[in-house]
């Protein structure tokens, strides 16, 4: 009965896990916007999605950001944008998971009349 672990569901689980994780990184970046020396962190979302996980996602410093005199390179614009993005992505993932479960339930329950 590993019919329940459809490829879609496994992918969605990973997708949601990564999105939630990324939200944590964004929150950390935003929280430390005024911390001297703090470097912006992120994950390569698409790459991590492809990887068969088990170790945690690889967190990297984000290149190409402007650094302020105190060594901090957090961009409020970038993080603000990411905040909106992860929120939306999460919503999409949840709805898709819901649809997938509904599909399974329909397949199970429609056979009742048979």
């Amino acid at each position, binding site marked *: 009965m590993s019919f329940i672990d459809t490829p879609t569901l496994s992918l969605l689980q990973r997708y949601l896990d990564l*999105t*939630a*994780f990324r*939200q*944590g*990184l*964004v*929150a*950390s970046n*935003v*929280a*430390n*916007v*005024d*911390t*001297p020396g*703090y*470097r912006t*962190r992120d994950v390569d979302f698409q790459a991590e999605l492809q990887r068969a996980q088990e*170790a*945690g*996602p690889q*967190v990297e410093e984000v290149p190409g950001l402007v650094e302020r005199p105190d060594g901090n390179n957090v961009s*409020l614009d970038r*993080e*603000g944008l990411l*905040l*909106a993005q*992860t*929120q939306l992505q*999460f*919503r999409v993932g*949840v*709805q898709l*998971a*819901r649809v997938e*479960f*509904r599909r399974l339930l329909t397949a199970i329950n429609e056979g009742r009349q048979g």
Partner: protein
Amino acid sequence: MNLFGVMDISASALKAERQRAEVVASNMANAETTRTPEGGPYRRHHIVFSTAKPSFPQALESRMGAASGIGGVEVREVVPDSAPPLRRYEPSHPDADADGYVSYPAINPVEEMVDLMGAVRSYELNSSAVTASKQMIQQSLEILR
């Protein structure tokens, strides 16, 4: 760490930025204070942030704890400025020294306002982060139809 923990990270920033605003407010309020209980004029204070280490059980559980340098923020210290006070010639002032100079705090109101605006902006973005995390948690409930 789950999204509740992420909210804690943002909450720590709200607390820190608020403390920063308090320090700025104190500086602005005391820009002309020539006499303090410790003696001498008010000294400008500034706040030092540092990244908070994740709490121990979370660090063990979460993969994020393993990625060092990530976490909330905390106020490491509030330090008095080491800059020398401004001296103005006001011989009739009760706090004038032997040469007739009064020592004033080296506080630039414009600088303090800019600092305050920065604190407000950071506070707002962290507040948005709290809302985002909260909405993601609420969204999760839709999985259960």
